[in-house]
């Protein structure tokens, strides 16, 4: 239904298809769909799968921009398809898998490389000595929390990797979300692992590959602003390196 005329609007969806058992390279397939005015792109994809072509593969789960599963390139731009309104698009909508990721099938991408980068930044609390339970909880003031809270809101949707021009060219680059998460722990007053992570930041996938295109922050659906984290992490990594000449580190 068009909001004004009350009618369904016919749209053409140009969808990337890839079957690893049959195709050498991805191809596109076109679907004509009569769309309701309140539909999101994900609604149209689900309609295609349910009513037109059950062989179409795509990831999705929560439908409320929380799980981060349904990231795809819509008309060339990385989007969470569950919060991307069809009303904002014309009659032709091109849906592709997230850019810069190997394609497993149709709109589903390989996530293992992303998980490896995540693991590399040690995204967990590192402490020299575990606190005994009797000593009570680790307390943190609202001011201490505010330093990193923004960077902890990431839902791992990988849109920032699909938007980053450096990820497209530098396979070793740790990338926006992983660096933002590492930086989040470095800024956490309860953590003691900043020196370890800064070594990772200066290592093979160095934060200094980032050219501050700011694309990651532009496409981030949760306003995490990974570009801010990456560029703060650059300065911290340099300060940490300089400090290491003056202050002796344990181990």
């Amino acid at each position, binding site marked *: 239904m068009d909001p004004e005329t009350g009618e369904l609007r016919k749209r053409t969806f140009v969808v990337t298809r890839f079957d690893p058992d049959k195709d050498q390279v991805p191809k596109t397939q076109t679907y004509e769909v009569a769309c309701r005015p309140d539909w999101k792109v994900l609604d149209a994809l689900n309609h295609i799968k349910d009513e037109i072509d059950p062989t179409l593969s795509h990831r999705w789960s929560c439908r409320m921009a929380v799980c981060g599963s349904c990231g795809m390139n819509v008309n060339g731009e990385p989007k969470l398809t569950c919060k991307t309104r069809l009303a904002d698009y014309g009659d032709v909508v091109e849906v592709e898998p997230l850019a*810069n*990721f190997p394609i497993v099938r149709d709109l589903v991408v390989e996530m293992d490389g992303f998980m490896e980068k995540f693991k590399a930044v040690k995204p967990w609390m590192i402490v020299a000595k575990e606190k005994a339970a009797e000593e009570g909880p680790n307390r943190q003031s609202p001011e201490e929390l505010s330093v990193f809270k923004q960077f902890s809101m990431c839902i791992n949707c990988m849109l920032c990797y699909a938007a980053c*021009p450096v990820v497209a060219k530098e*396979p070793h680059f740790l990338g926006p979300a992983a660096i933002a998460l590492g930086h989040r722990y470095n800024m956490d007053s309860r953590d003691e692992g900043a020196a370890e992570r800064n070594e990772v930041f200066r290592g093979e996938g160095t934060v200094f590959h980032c050219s501050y295109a700011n694309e990651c922050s532009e496409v981030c659906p949760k306003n995490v602003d990974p570009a*801010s984290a990456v560029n*703060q992490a650059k300065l911290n990594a340099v300060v940490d390196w300089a400090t290491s000449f003056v202050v002796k580190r344990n181990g």
Partner: protein
Amino acid sequence: MSRASHPQAMTPHRPGSTRTAPPQVPDTFWSQSRMRTYLLFDATGIPYMLVGLLVLRVAFALGRGPEAWAELLQEFSHPLYLAFHVLALVSVVFVGVRFFRLFPKAQPAKLGPVKPPPRPVLHAGLYVAWIGVTLALLVVLGGLWP
């Protein structure tokens, strides 16, 4: 409808059992408005490089004496040179505005005990400093002071 990314982009060190298609970027990746702006930003390096070469030329002309200097000034009044200097000025303004927009959020929330000022203050401060330094240079180089 896509172009290839780096073939190893986002690939795991140990490949999975399923064969995958290589990573791609949309054809439109480099022509989207934001990316175009970023590429323009990168391209401003060319006028900067040329300005650097011109500065060397100025230094050599100064070293060769008043005649060479007068000759160079005559050459610089050519419309092509004037157009180039306008382009260089536009490049500087473009990079300055972009840098000022992005600089505040690259500041650490805290560096030791020191906290940077709020982002809007930092943003405004950069513009004030830029305009102030430009005016000071105009006054000094224009011979108005001392």
